[in-house]
């Protein structure tokens, strides 16, 4: 893996990666999980899907990952189906395998030998700050460290698109802030596109340049916001008036989507 420091192009100049076009997902014939979803994902976007539970954000992610198929509409890839990395809410590591063997998994399933990709694995571990723990077993790591391994695994093959399903929801606030910051740095380094599911307004504003606000019953896209603050973002951004104002806007949009007044 070569670390490129290439910044994503400004919003509006990015080439299209994929498009979710008029997608419905209906379970059991009558439960509408997702209704008429339209979303264009561009290369280099950091998109947050923000919404209450039951708004279909996880369903959208599973559709993009190809784990299920839309009832109506289609998911169209601009340049053929891209490679995808996934991070779940749980670290989802194999307890019997060491950290490096866990990160090796995507390559192993492609039939690559460990020796062939050892450098990529160790670079990925270095990027998440866990190179010293390559030979450790998951049980020896803290919750935050396990999540870092999970992130290293998702990006080790340098996929075009990384899907994250509330990855930090189960972590404590301090660890979450640290991981948010590190994730942004990582995203800059590997120049990947990220779709990030969350129900935290603050997290979505801090991380993303596009926030897709979703509403529930039936799950649908309510509105989209643009966070026009430059990367890299750090603690200074988190305490800025701009951040507070953006959080207010996003929060209002979320409440409007949920049919309440702020």
């Amino acid at each position, binding site marked *: 893996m070569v670390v490129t420091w290439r910044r994503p192009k400004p919003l509006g100049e990015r080439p299209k990666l994929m498009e979710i076009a008029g997608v419905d997902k209906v379970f059991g014939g009558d439960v509408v999980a997702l209704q008429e979803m339209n979303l264009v994902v561009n290369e280099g976007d950091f998109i947050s899907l923000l919404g209450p539970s039951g708004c279909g954000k996880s369903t959208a992610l*599973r559709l993009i*990952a*190809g*784990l299920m198929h839309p009832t109506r509409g289609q998911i169209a890839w601009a340049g053929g189906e891209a490679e*995808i990395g*996934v991070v*779940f809410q*749980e670290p*989802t590591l*194999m*307890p*019997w*395998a060491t950290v490096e063997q866990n990160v090796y*998994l*995507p390559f*192993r*399933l*492609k039939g690559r030998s460990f020796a062939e990709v050892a450098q990529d694995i160790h670079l990925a571990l270095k990027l998440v700050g866990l190179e010293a723990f390559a030979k450790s*077993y*998951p*049980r020896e790591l803290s919750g935050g460290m396990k999540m870092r391994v999970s992130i290293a695994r998702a990006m080790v093959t340098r996929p075009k698109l990384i899907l994250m399903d509330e990855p930090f929801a189960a972590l404590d606030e301090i660890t979450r802030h640290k991981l948010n910051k590190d994730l942004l740095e990582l995203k800059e380094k590997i120049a990947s596109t990220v779709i990030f599911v969350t129900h935290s307004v603050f997290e979505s504003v801090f991380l993303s340049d596009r926030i897709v606000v979703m509403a529930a019953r039936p799950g649908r896209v309510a509105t989209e916001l643009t966070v026009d603050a430059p990367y890299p973002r750090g603690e200074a951004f988190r305490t800025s008036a701009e951040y507070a104002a953006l959080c207010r806007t996003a929060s209002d949009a979320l409440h409007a989507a949920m049919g309440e007044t702020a």
Partner: protein
Amino acid sequence: MSLVETLRDADEIARARARRREKIARWALPALTVALMILLWDRIAVWNAIPHYILPAPGLVAETLVKDFPILGPALLVTLQITLAALAVAVIGGVGLAVLFSLSRWAEMCFYPFAVVLQVTPVVSIAPLIFIYVDNRIVGLLLCAWLVAFFPILSNTTLGLNSTDHNLRDLYKIYGATRWQRLRYLQLPTALPYFLGGLRIAGGLSLIGAVVAEYVAGTGGIGSGLAFRILEAGYRLNIPRMFAALALIALTGVVIFAVLSLVTHLLLHKWHESALKREI
């Protein structure tokens, strides 16, 4: 007083003392209990002047064990061979069937009922039939022991193969894993602790199966195991030898369990919950 010394509060000291005490008690208590039981047994036999053809004293049993070892030793070897062979076949058959079931739901639907029927039918009642149809006595014994031993391995391994983490399964799917890769890298490691649990049960059961089958088979001569020696000694009212043979069977069972527990520990101690010690 060093810093470390001063930091040891009353709780710490009490805990350390309790730990030391437990460490000694863990082997001393069972050893003491066994020694007392043997002493009690000896006293009952001596004080009541019970004849040795009814209840031999432990000393006589030990003496018989040494004296009759030329007869009991080869018998032990036969029983051991059948037990281990049955266990090996049970592992191959049990794991093989479990893998087949996990690869094909159809196969599971077809054959699982047979496995259950074989398991719930007492081996004592099938054994006479087996010895009618199977000429070779060793093969018959093996078949009986296998019938008893393979089910726990099959059912535990099946459970393990089906217990994979949902998200990991999704992950394998996203990365386009083949069925074989999923089995090899995900399902088999997940099933390992379950399999080992089944194996420890099967180890004891294959010994029971071997002994029970020998009782049913009953014929003597060359290639007779411990169970036959017990029957034979019973007919001759050679009770001390019955006790000696019984002690050998029990010892064999304990050794099998200990070895399989050690194997389990070696395979799991690095990662599995069951093998982890809590820090505090």
